[in-house]
């Protein structure tokens, strides 16, 4: 409990650090918000008009004054107004987030459901032909760029079966679950493929390590069957690296998957951030990065708590 409090106490510090870096970094990028907003018409502005606009958005001040204002807003739960959408930043993010979260969850489920059994299978058939097969498949999975895979899937479906992935307006899970799943399943497979390949490799090597541990020998000496040894004694001990990997990958996916979102025409967080950067939508970029960092910290915390649940030897917060 104390550990949890101590961990949560660090959150604001990390978020402030991240926000300062982003705040400065995006302002160092050449180009400015007004040019980005008005496009070629920006050239028609008189210097006075330009200044007035800058003052209106508050970007005429030095960066630390801007940061102070933004931080003050943040403390009131106000992330600012997006200049491209004309709406509060938080609303824009929360509109996009369910899709990203669902996609990340689906990909992770696919990765674990496929990857863990494949890894266990390869480990228990070590050095046999079937192990080699799994390892080669995992290698291919890891080294195929996901846009190639995405295009392959779309091409196979449309050219081979005349089916097109469900595109068009995105429907959230709670409105039309079937249509939602139809829209997300292919992107999830695309993202889950490489993820599953990593999970396979990690769980294979972890299982190989664990299978030569002393307690596995003990279990065998007690007359535990091969299946009992693998699933009951070995696997729980091999899961820690799998959880670590899944946590990191899941954290990345929560930041959005730009390429896959683009190919499947999904309005996710990744494209939102990309557009925001291109549009110099300072408030939105800051808000997104902060949100993504926050997610990452939550995921890390969950990963650590999972360790504790998996392995009684791990006690958090002990020095």
């Amino acid at each position, binding site marked *: 409990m104390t550990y949890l409090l101590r961990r949560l106490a660090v959150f604001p510090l990390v978020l402030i650090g991240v926000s300062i870096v982003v705040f400065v970094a995006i302002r160092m990028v050449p180009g400015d918000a007004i040019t980005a907003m008005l496009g070629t018409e920006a050239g028609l502005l008189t210097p006075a008009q330009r200044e007035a606009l800058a003052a209106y958005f508050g970007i005429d001040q030095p960066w630390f004054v801007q940061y102070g204002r933004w931080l003050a807003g943040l403390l009131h739960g106000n992330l600012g107004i997006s200049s491209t959408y004309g709406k509060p930043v938080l609303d824009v993010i929360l509109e996009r987030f369910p899709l990203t979260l669902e996609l990340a969850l689906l990909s992770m489920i696919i990765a674990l459901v496929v990857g863990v059994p494949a890894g266990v299978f390869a480990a228990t058939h070590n050095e046999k032909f079937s192990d080699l097969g799994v390892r080669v498949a995992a290698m291919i999975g890891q080294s195929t760029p996901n846009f190639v895979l995405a295009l392959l899937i779309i091409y196979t479906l449309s050219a081979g079966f005349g089916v097109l992935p469900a595109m068009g307006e995105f429907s959230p899970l709670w409105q039309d679950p079937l249509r939602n799943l139809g829209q997300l399943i292919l992107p999830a497979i695309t993202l889950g493929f490489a993820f599953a390949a990593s999970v396979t490799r990690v769980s294979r090597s972890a299982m190989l390590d664990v299978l030569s541990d002393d307690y596995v*020998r003990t*279990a065998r000496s007690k007359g535990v069957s091969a299946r009992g040894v693998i699933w009951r004694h070995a696997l729980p001990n091999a899961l820690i690296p799998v959880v670590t990997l899944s946590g990191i990958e899941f954290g990345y996916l929560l930041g959005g998957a730009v390429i896959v979102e683009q190919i499947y025409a999904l309005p996710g967080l990744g494209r939102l951030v990309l557009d925001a950067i291109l549009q110099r939508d300072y408030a939105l970029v800051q808000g997104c990065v902060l949100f993504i960092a926050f997610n990452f910290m939550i995921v890390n915390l969950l990963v650590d708590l999972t360790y504790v649940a998996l392995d*009684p030897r791990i006690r958090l917060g002990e020095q």
Partner: protein
Amino acid sequence: MIPLLSVSDLSVGFGRTPQANEVVRGVSFELADGETLAIVGESGSGKSVTALSINRLVDFGGGRITGGAIKLKRADGGVLDLTAASEPQLTRIRGAEIGMIFQEPMTSLNPVLTIGTQIEESFRLHRGLTGRQATAAAKDALDRVRIPDAARRLKYTPNQLSGGMLQRVMIATALACNPRLLIADEPTTALDVTVQAQIMALLAELKRETGMSMIFITHDIGLVAGIADKIMVMQNGEGVEQGELNQILDQPQHPYTQHLLQDVPHFASGRATRSDGRRDKATDTEPALKVNDLVVRFPVKSGFFGRATGAVHAVDGVDFDLMQGETLAIVGESGSGKSTTARAVLGLVRSTRGSFSASVRKAAAGQSALPIQMVFQNPYASLNPRLTIESILAEPVIATGGRVDAATRAKMATLLKRVGLPENSLERYPHQFSGGQRQRLCIARALMLNPSVVVLDEAVSALDVSVQARVLELLVDLQREFGLAYLFISHDMAVVERIAHRIAVIYAGQIVEIGDAKSVLSAPKHAYTKKLIAAVPTIDRRREHFEVDTRQVPSLVRPLGFEPGPARWEQFGADHRVRVEA
């Protein structure tokens, strides 16, 4: 009368061509009901592989039985050749008819399952018990191995119990279904000597209670004197000699058995101590190392801000001095603070209080001399595998600002020769040497800087018994030649007896008895020293009965600001002091 187990002409090989890589060749023995056979040998002798072949666990380690038969008399009277048994048959036999315990109780239990679950598993598998019945059976099993408070302990995970307790749990698990044969593979090697005595006592008692047969594998021929009926000595994969206990111990025929009994350090209650360099003559010289009121405490932190709420008193007021050319052995069990003392002397851990001074001998020309060097326990882990021997030996010179010049190279060559390594060792890597050779390398490395004091932390504990003897000889020779002072940290009384001039017994961070080696070993005065020495297995103590004792070592965690009272000492003889307990 059919024997319970009859092994004939057993051969076991490893790898793709097991016939070509046999590590056990033509081993035969028989074991009657209720009998105990000890298989004695050093690492690589094939003793563990022989044992693992009986319940065919050797298959999972890549081994293949290449010849011979292992006939087991089943509970129904039938006889089964285990070399030809199918895996499902073996699964039913393992745990039910053949139980097994292993060397490392700390790693032999599944760390993520409670010990209750692990014991219950045996009952579920072989007795079909479930739920509350299984739990009750597991509690009985723990009671049987004399674990106090069994019902509560069932919910513990292995990390919450000590090594001795875990070995009891292992025994409880192995004996859960009353197997008629128990295979014990070095079950006490990883344990402290007093705990070892407890486990041996427990095994002897359980054997009497259940009438089971036992195969006891060990490297320590002294240990089996108390428990075995028969002994088989193995060397290089072959059984070189076997027979009744007394016959083997008293009239060994094979040269290797004779070597094991005579040349290897066995504890002799102070009769085998060194006679050179006694302290009584020249005590007016400056000690090579003087330690005064050494205290090492580690804070225990808790709460939101991690404030110290107590301290582990690892070393609590230790004083001693060490003369030139003298060995002081610090003996004690794990957690007693003996290694922490050594590390504090070297500055590897920061001492909370206390002072020590080491006299610097005059350095050879052009070489800096550090007064204290160290040799660690595990020669496999304490040499960087990526460095050549030359770089390893050069390291201390470079670290103290020296240059690797002709003089340094000459010194390397001399030292390598002196510790008995081939001349071409310099360009080789650590993995090309055996354990004993690596420890010689570590010794050479320690001597590179002409130290006056060498701290040897369990320096021979990881070595095979006959290698141990030779490394000890080397250490004694080097001591005489260079006038080195040794601070020898060890848990092994037999080894200590061979090398120590003086012995300090340390318990719970404090020295409880210190003095002349002969005097301490032959006439211990402190209750703990007596208990420690009584627990040391020797060939002379055959079939000795140990009382099962489940007392735990006291906790070293003390409240903040706690100071132990001043030590009071009682003097026995010229050089033998004992702490008076309050």
